[in-house]
């Protein structure tokens, strides 16, 4: 009996040390958080395929609406976890999702760290609003200089001479500015910081660009919904959120002076104007600080990222094909129309064409999927 016990102990210790070796596995539970599956009676019961993705909260409202429509049309249920782009990429890397949503494209270094080749498929573009909460003030003009000063803590009260000069006629209260930023890894932060680095050398040197930053001032909140909620509950708050969140929660946003010198609101037209620039073949581009006269300066594409070879982790051909069909469907005019309703800018024709071309290079161990 004692020998048997000893054996068990040895076996258990052995198992444990194996676990230590690949301890990264322990984080796979990540994407389970916030995942909401759209469940409804299945009209055509034959395909028992379900797809899962995670990531961008910025594009969350679009995917949520599109995927529930997809379920009604095809009977394939797609769950999408609003984890933030950072955690979405992490889940794709761990190969626990079929696709991830991200508003930040992977750098060459990041792509090299993935276990396989990935492709970026843009699905729409959207503005990052500078949202604020000042009772009685619905509109505000900001220049890149003043915006930088606010987010670096150099302007810390709304009753500031530079703000007053920019906004004649607006009665600013004597109220501390509370900067709100993301506390998790975020593509929205990536777009915002990319813009800030382009317009301010001080920002570039001291803060930089990335999905999560070393913020000079302010408080963090989780996800776009968290930042939007904190802004709308805090007098004197200012922060950056996806357009759809500002719109849905009726939060005021600032008009931002663009490179051409015009004060632009984050409208669909202004985002589309920013998206007309050069598009590289792999669609990995930041469209911030566009020089077009009517472009809103803080906007960016949001991408679906998938593996180029869909044969991994023992996935079936049917699963891989369903995944590709779903993403192809996202580029369909009817989904682009949904995007427009939700205050995203639909993709330009040439980008759709490019994206469809990229999708057709995705394969299942060499076999084409579409």
């Amino acid at each position: 009996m004692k020998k048997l016990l000893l054996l068990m102990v040895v076996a258990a210790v052995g198992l444990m040390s194996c676990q230590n070796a690949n301890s990264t596995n322990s984080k796979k539970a990540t994407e389970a958080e916030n995942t909401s599956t759209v469940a409804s009676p299945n009209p055509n019961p034959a395909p028992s395929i379900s797809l899962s993705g995670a990531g961008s909260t910025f594009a969350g409202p679009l995917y949520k609406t599109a995927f529930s429509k997809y379920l009604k049309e095809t009977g394939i249920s797609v769950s999408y976890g609003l984890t933030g782009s950072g955690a979405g990429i992490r889940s794709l890397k761990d190969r626990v999702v079929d696709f991830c949503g991200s508003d930040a494209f992977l750098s060459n270094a990041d792509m090299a760290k993935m276990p396989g080749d990935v492709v970026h498929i843009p699905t729409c573009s959207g503005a990052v609003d500078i949202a604020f909460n000042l009772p009685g003030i619905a509109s505000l003009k900001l220049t890149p200089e003043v915006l930088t000063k606010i987010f670096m803590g150099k302007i810390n009260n709304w009753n500031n001479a530079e703000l007053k000069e920019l906004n004649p006629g607006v009665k600013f209260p004597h109220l501390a500015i509370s900067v709100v930023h993301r506390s998790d890894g975020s593509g929205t932060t990536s777009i915002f910081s990319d813009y800030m680095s382009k317009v301010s050398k001080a920002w570039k040197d001291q803060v930089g660009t990335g999905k999560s930053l070393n913020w000079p001032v302010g408080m963090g909140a989780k996800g776009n919904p968290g930042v939007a909620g904190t802004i709308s509950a805090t007098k004197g708050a200012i922060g950056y959120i996806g357009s759809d969140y500002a719109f849905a929660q009726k939060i005021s946003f600032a008009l931002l002076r663009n490179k051409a010198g015009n004060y632009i609101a984050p409208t669909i037209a202004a985002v589309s104007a920013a998206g007309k620039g050069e598009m590289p073949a792999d669609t990995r581009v930041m469209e911030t600080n566009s020089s077009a006269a009517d472009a809103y300066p803080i906007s960016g594409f949001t991408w679906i990222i998938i593996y180029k070879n869909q044969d991994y982790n023992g996935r079936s051909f049917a699963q891989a094909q369903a995944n590709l069909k779903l993403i192809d469907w996202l580029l369909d005019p009817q989904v682009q129309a949904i995007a427009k309703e939700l205050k995203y800018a639909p993709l330009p024709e040439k980008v759709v064409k490019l994206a469809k071309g990229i999708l057709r290079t995705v394969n299942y161990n060499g076999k084409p999927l579409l």
Partner: protein
Amino acid sequence: MNSEKVTKNILLVASIILILLATGMVLTLISGSIPVFEKFGFQFIFSNKWNPTTGREQYGALPFIVGTVVTSILALIICIPLAFSASLFIGEYYKGKMVSKIIGTLVDLLAGIPSIVYGLWGFYFLRPLIVQLGFNAQGFGIFTSSVILAIMIIPYATSISTEIISLVPNHLKEAAYSLGATRMEVIFYVTVPAARSGIIASYILALGRALGETMAVTMLIGNSNRIPHGIFDLGNTMASVIANQFGEAEGLKFSALIAIALLLFLITGLINGIGKLIIKKFA
């Protein structure tokens, strides 16, 4: 084998599994935190720089250690007067009476409320109050979190000390009364000293609970990765930085978060150890 032996072996296996779980957990934490300690050494504990930006990565846990310790101790300071009064009220003044039973039940009920509910309540009711009182502009921060934590740990601090106070032998108190002591004198010269170790232990347990609390604190502390300049400043705790950033963490950042988890584990372990020592010493 007789049933005696079977039972004994089942118990033995269960205990061994527990030991393996605990050591396995510590081992994974240690092995996970090696990269960050290799890179920054003990600077990781004393540095206040937390910069996850690619290319300038630098991790220091000091802001979170300070945030955790300050919120927890402040919570304990707020909690003790309330918990001490409540335990005297329930365990001594109105011992066995209806009113103390009701209060005791209500205090215990506080322990059963999920932490997210405390967070929500703090976000929508406590935070606007802090703003109205003019403590700070946005209502988040160390102080707000400490108040919520204080409420959360009251039941832990109260129920054990109540128990201990009510267990003080009657003959001790009667002896004091017979010497002409007033009720106040009996309480402060007989009851409290006799129950001292239990009371202190209950506060240490409460502190341990405050150190690890995550959800409610994350919602209220402001999640700013800088060392707080005062109790009304924003901050962050070890538990809430892990909750916020574990999702996307990898490489060095992942190791830094694991190392923070290890430090938190050590700090709570230390606190519990001190608690046990105190009980042993005064009991």
